[in-house]
C-alpha cells in the first residue's frame, strides 16, 4: 500500500493494530478509539508514540483532551461515500486544534483528494494505489475555492477583490 505525504511516496512506518492483536513492545502503532480508551495507560507507557484511528461514526469530543498526544490520526474510510469523515477532519483541525499528521486511509479515490486536502487531511493511504503526481494534480483540481474551510480561513469574497 502506497502512502503519499508531502508529494512523495513514503514507507508504511506505522503498524495499524487490530483490536484483538497483541501490542508489540516497541514500534509505532495506531489503535482504534475503542482500544485507546480501554488501554490508555498501557499504551501511554510505551516508548514509541501511539497514533489514533477514527471511524466515520466516532465523536472527536471523546478524546479532546488526548488529541495533542497523537502525532498521527488516521481517518478510516470503510466506503468512499461516507462523508462523515470530512466533517470529522474539519472538527479535528478547526475546533480541536489538532496539528499533527491527519491521514485518510482505506476506500477513497483520487477524485476525493481535492476535498480531503481542503478539510485538513495531509497524508493519503488509499486501498488502490495513487501516484504522488496524481495526488498533487488532484489537490490542484480547482484553482478557485469559494468556501472557507481548513485550508482557507476566509471565503473567496474576503480573499479576493471581486
Amino acid at each position, binding site marked *: 500500500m502506497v502512502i503519499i505525504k508531502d508529494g512523495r511516496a513514503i514507507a508504511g512506518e506505522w503498524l495499524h493494530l487490530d483490536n484483538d492483536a497483541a501490542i508489540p513492545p516497541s514500534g509505532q502503532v495506531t489503535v482504534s478509539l475503542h482500544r485507546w480508551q480501554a488501554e490508555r495507560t498501557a499504551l501511554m507507557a510505551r516508548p514509541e508514540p501511539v497514533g489514533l484511528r477514527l471511524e466515520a461514526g466516532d465523536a472527536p469530543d471523546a478524546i479532546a483532551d488526548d488529541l495533542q498526544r497523537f502525532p498521527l490520526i488516521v481517518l478510516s474510510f470503510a466506503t*468512499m461515500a461516507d462523508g462523515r469523515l470530512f466533517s470529522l477532519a*474539519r472538527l479535528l483541525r478547526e475546533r480541536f486544534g489538532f496539528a499533527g499528521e491527519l491521514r485518510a486511509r482505506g476506500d477513497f479515490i483520487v477524485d476525493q483528494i481535492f476535498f480531503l486536502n*481542503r478539510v485538513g487531511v495531509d497524508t493519503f493511504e488509499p486501498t488502490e494505489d495513487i501516484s504522488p503526481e496524481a495526488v498533487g494534480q488532484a489537490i490542484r483540481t*480547482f484553482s478557485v475555492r469559494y468556501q*472557507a474551510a481548513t485550508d482557507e480561513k476566509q471565503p473567496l469574497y474576503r480573499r479576493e477583490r471581486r
Partner: protein
Amino acid sequence: MYQYDEFDQRIVDERVRQFRDQTARFLAGQLTEDQFRPLRLMNGLYLQRHAPMLRVAIPYGLLSTRQLRMLAHIARTYDRGYGHFTTRQNVQYNWPDLDRVPDILADLASVQMHAIQTSGNCIRNVTSDPIAGVAADELEDPRPYCEIIRQWSTFHPEFSYLPRKFKIAVTGAEQDRAAVQVHDIGLRLVRNEAGEVGFAVLVGGGLGRTPIIGETIRPFLAKRDLLSYLEAILRVYNRFGRRDNKYKARIKILLKETGVAAFTTQVEQEWQQIKDHLVLDDTEIERVKAHFTEPPYENLPAELPGAVAQRTESDPAFAAWFRHNTFAHKVPGYRIVFLSLKPPKVPPGDLDHRQMDAIAELADRFSFGEIRVTHNQNMIFADVRASELHALWTELREWGVATPNINKATDIICCPGLDFCSLANASSIPIAEEIYSRLDNFDYLYDLGDLRINISGCMNGCGHHTVGHIGILGVDKKGEEWYQLTLGGSSANEAALGERLGPAIAKPDVADAVTTILKTYVELRAPDESFLQTVRRIGITPFQEQVYGHH
C-alpha cells in the same frame, strides 16, 4: 442577472476538464461503475434505460437568451432535438452519448452554465420564486441569496458526500411560489420586529417516499449569519443523518427521529461555535445584488392600452390568454407573461430546439432578453410591455406555447415516468395525456378554476404528486401499472400533503376517476370556492363515494 467573473468562470472550466478526465478513465476501465457513479451523478449524469440522461442546472430558474440558445444547440447537436424542463428548475436531455457529455459541459461553460451538483448526495440547484424581482408581494428579491448559496455550496469540501440529496429553496414574497415548505431547507425573507430583513429558516420538508412539511427552526436569522447557519445545519446532518438506509437518509427523517427541539438545539450549538468565523459581509451581498438590478423600464400608464383592451373584447382567444397566462407586474404598464409548456399531446415541460431558439428571439424582443423557468414546468417572460401583449401572443401561439391554461387542470406537472426513467414503476406521460384529452373544452376548464394535477411515476415523487390538489402516483402491482390518487395537497402557503383517496386504480380507469372527481367538485362546491377549498371543507368522503361507488 448574475454574470460570472473570472473566478466563477474558472471553476466551471476546471470542472469540464475534471469530468473529461473522469469519463475517459471510466471508459478506459480505470474507474469502476461504483466509483464513477457518485462522480457522474454530481454532474447530473444518469446511466439508464435507453441512454444516459444529463440534467443541467438553471440556477433559480433564470436564463439569458444566449443561454437558452445554447440549450437549443445542445438539443440539436447532442440529443434528439428536444429538452425536458423539470420541477426543480433544471433541464434534462434524454439521449446524449456518454463520451460526448464532456463536450456538452464545455458548451455550457461557454455561456456560464453547468451541470454541477444536479444529482448525487450533495447540495442541489438552489430554487426560487419564478417571478422574483417583479412580484408585487415581494419583501426583497431572493435571487442574490440564491446565488450566494450557489457559490457557497459549489464543491463544498465538507458537504459533497452527504447521506442523501439536499435541496434548498428561497422565497422573498408573501405568496410562496418556491415550495419552501417541502425542501430540505426553505428560506423565507421576513422582517423582524426591529424592522430588519432576514430569513425564517425551515428544515426537513420534502416529498418522495416520506413526504413531510418542513418545520421552522429559526423564525429570524440575520443576513450576516446565513452561511454559518446553513453550514451548522449541514454539519449536523452530515454527521448524524442516517446512512444505513437510503430511504431514511434525508434530513426530514433525522429531524423526525431526533425531535424538532433537540435537532434545533444541536444546530444552534454548532452555529454558536462557527457564527463569528463565517460572516456573510454586506459588501458581498451588495456585490451580488448589483447583478440583479431592474431592467430599464419605461414610464408607462397603468391602464391597459386601448388597442389591447379592445382586443380582449373582440378576440376571445386572446382574451383567454390575457386572462389566464398574464399576471400583474409591480411596474405600471408591464405584465408578467407565462409561456405554457403544456399544450395538448406534448409531454409536460418538453420543448424542441426550434421552439427554444424562437423563445429566445422573442425574449430579446419583448422581455429584456431574460427567461425564467418555473417549478411547474412552464416559462415566464417577466417584463413585457402591456402594449405589446397582442404582438407577443400572436408569435407565442405560432410556437405552441400560448395554450391559455396556466394553473388550470391541464397545466399538469408530470415526471418523465416509465418511458424514460429507470426508477419509475409506471408511466406518467400517457396518464397526463389521457386526462388532458378529457379537458378539451376550455369553458369547462376555466369553470374548474385553479387546479393542480401532479403525476409521478414512482414514489420518489419527481412529479410532486403529494402536493397536487389531485395527486397521482404510479405503483407497480405484479407487473401492472396502477395509480394511487390523493386529494387536497398543496405546496403553496397553506402547504399540505394530499390525503389518499382509496385503493389504487387501474391504468385504463385513471382518467375516468379524475373526471368523476372534477364532476363531484362542480356539484358540491360553494359559490366562488376553489377545488382545494372544497376538498378541505367537505373532506374526501364524497369524492370516494363517487369514484369507488361505480366499481
